[in-house]
């Protein structure tokens, strides 16, 4: 991985949140995996918490995005408004373009 990965997505891009099946400390909640949302904004680059959780600090900074998902897509029994959304911060390697 290059030391400073470039931002791959722009606001409005459709992305799928992956299920990497990765053991150990990860920050992508199970309920959001395999769901499709749109990029809300690019947050900057940060060290990977999946590395920092094991004391590996000072490594490459990777892009982080806010991804906006429709509540109706997350919860089959959602009773709120059709337009309701949820924004999650997701690291680049958990995303694929749709």
């Amino acid at each position, binding site marked *: 991985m290059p030391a400073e990965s470039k931002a791959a997505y722009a606001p409005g891009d459709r992305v799928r949140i992956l*299920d990497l*099946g*990765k*053991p*150990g*400390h*990860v920050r992508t*909640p*199970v*309920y*959001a*995996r395999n769901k499709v949302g749109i990029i809300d904004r690019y947050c900057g680059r940060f060290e990977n*918490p*999946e590395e*920092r*959780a*094991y*004391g590996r*600090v000072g490594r490459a900074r990777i892009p982080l995005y806010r991804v906006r998902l429709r509540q109706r897509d*997350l*919860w089959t029994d959602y009773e709120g408004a059709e337009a309701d959304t949820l924004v999650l911060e997701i690291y680049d390697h958990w995303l694929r373009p749709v």
Partner: protein
Amino acid sequence: MAERLITDIGGLPAGEVPRQEAPPLFWQKHMLAMFNVLWSNGILNLDEYRRTMEEMSPEDYNRSTFYGRRLDGMIELLVEKGLIDRAELGARTDDILRKGTRDHAG
């Protein structure tokens, strides 16, 4: 298939959330101050701390509390990093508990 961490409870049935105020005990404030000193000096980081929570057995995690988990996680990291000795910590803890603290009589 996704491995669900003990902390990853979004969307699971939850029951009633208790909302009563619980004023912090002295040891709880003391412990958070210590945690913040270790954190701001780069001795431990929040991702490591979260990882110690996730490595707890579901029984221990659910039996413990916000402050209890924070204390146990901090101890776990300090032992892991070789900064404190678990047996020495145990002996000193026993000694302090025997003598009493601001939160309880010895």
